[in-house]
């Protein structure tokens, strides 16, 4: 039976991991641009993913009211209006008015074992990066909801923020933490919610 051998030619001496390290710092900058800080008066600070045309997607448990303050990485604070809400799916769509707002590019999923990066505001730390791998894709318990399960350390404040693959494509919306596991809503489900709300997926 033929098998592929994966070799990491660069990983044989110290210093040769520089490419990975540099790529990671680019990745965090790229993800910070498309990650918003979302605060409503009732709930604690959360995160959100920027969508084209001034839309922001986040968790319903992050925005309980009809509006929220959306802060971009450039420091702009914009008034966000809730356009659609699906409490069961734990998703909310906000709209902000502004120009030159970046938008995430998305991907359906990533294979088990591949790297994932999350950016958010865990415990109030702005724009914090967490890196891990995809643990599994599917329900945590038989018959439950399908998640992207990631072996990555997240905390309160990451909710609603992006889980992205190594190329910066957003594959999920960070939503829950179960022990050491982070659970993200798959982008397919987010896109479905957006379609229902009349917004085209990017």
């Amino acid at each position: 039976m033929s098998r592929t051998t994966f070799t990491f030619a660069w990983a044989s001496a110290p210093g040769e991991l520089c490419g990975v390290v540099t790529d990671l710092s680019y990745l965090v900058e790229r993800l910070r641009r498309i990650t918003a800080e979302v605060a409503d008066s009732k709930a604690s600070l959360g995160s959100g993913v920027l969508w084209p045309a001034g839309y922001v997607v986040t968790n319903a448990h992050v925005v309980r009211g009809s509006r929220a303050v959306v802060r971009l990485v450039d420091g702009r604070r914009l008034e966000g209006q809730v356009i659609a809400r699906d409490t069961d799916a734990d998703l909310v769509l906000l709209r902000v008015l502004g120009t030159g707002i970046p938008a995430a590019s998305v991907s359906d999923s990533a294979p088990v074992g591949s790297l994932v990066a999350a950016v958010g505001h865990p415990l109030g730390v702005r724009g914090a990066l967490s890196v891990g791998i995809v643990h599994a894709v599917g329900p945590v318990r038989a018959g439950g909801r399908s998640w992207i399960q990631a072996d990555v350390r997240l905390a309160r404040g990451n909710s609603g923020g992006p889980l992205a693959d190594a190329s910066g494509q957003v594959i999920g919306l960070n939503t829950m933490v179960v022990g050491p596991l982070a659970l993200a809503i798959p982008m397919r489900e987010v896109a479905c919610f957006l379609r229902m709300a009349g917004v085209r997926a990017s």
Partner: protein
Amino acid sequence: MSDLVAFSNGLAAAVQQTSQSIFGVTARRRTGSTGVHWRSGLVVTADHTVQTEDDILLTRPDGRSVSATLAGRDPTVDLAVLRVDAGDVPAARIGDSSAVQAGHIVLAIGEGPRASWGVVSSVASGRGGASRAVFDLDLTLYPGFSGGPLVDVSGQVIGINTSGASRSQHLAIPAAVVDGLLDGLQRRGHIPRPYLGVSTQPVRLPDALRQRFSLEQASAVIVVAVQPASPAAEGGLMIGDVLVALGGASIADPMDLRRVLQPDRVGESLVASVIRGGEPHDLHLRVGERSR
């Protein structure tokens, strides 16, 4: 393609490839565990997850179930070997665990497949010689991961993960230890259970005694029972003897004794250093085999 993407793809490929050679293991109540198809028809898993010798059910990578039998076990290193008709499930690619160093990035894989990643925190040679080495891991062993493969970034299996019976540890048994156990199993047809015929209890060593005999250990074991006609009895071990070393390894507690008595030691003559009546004695004990 960026280096980061290449690295990510390599990790995913390592998981995908290894997952073709792992089985789900159902041999205890509640949580199942994971096993690695190590050699043709032999699946290795963590011994503490095998609580039944009959009705062991394995789940192939394609989801089909197949029954297995216990081929042998070595609780001292937490390894069990199951015999199964593996069909077209390929054996895993086994790597060189002696090349593993602290800091190496590794993946732990469980049935599903599910995966976690981290680094080797230390390579402990442990007490009782190099073959006792374990890898301490800085990664999460999720429920069901015990018995599963520890995989390096090139996709080779370098160990068997175990959270131990306490579930709080994050360890891996190096591939070389597994290979040694399987070599013995294939040579003998079974994994022998070493036997001395002695019961011991831990005992603190007075400072005066430690100084007099230049002992670093703070404790040893005292012999509280010797079975008649056992290797211990034939070697001259007596109730009340304080056993401080066996086969060159210091014995600080009864667990150390178990660690020395590995399957490959059966038939070997070991020097037992004892203190009897305040005087040192060296006895020669030939390790026996417990009947099956």
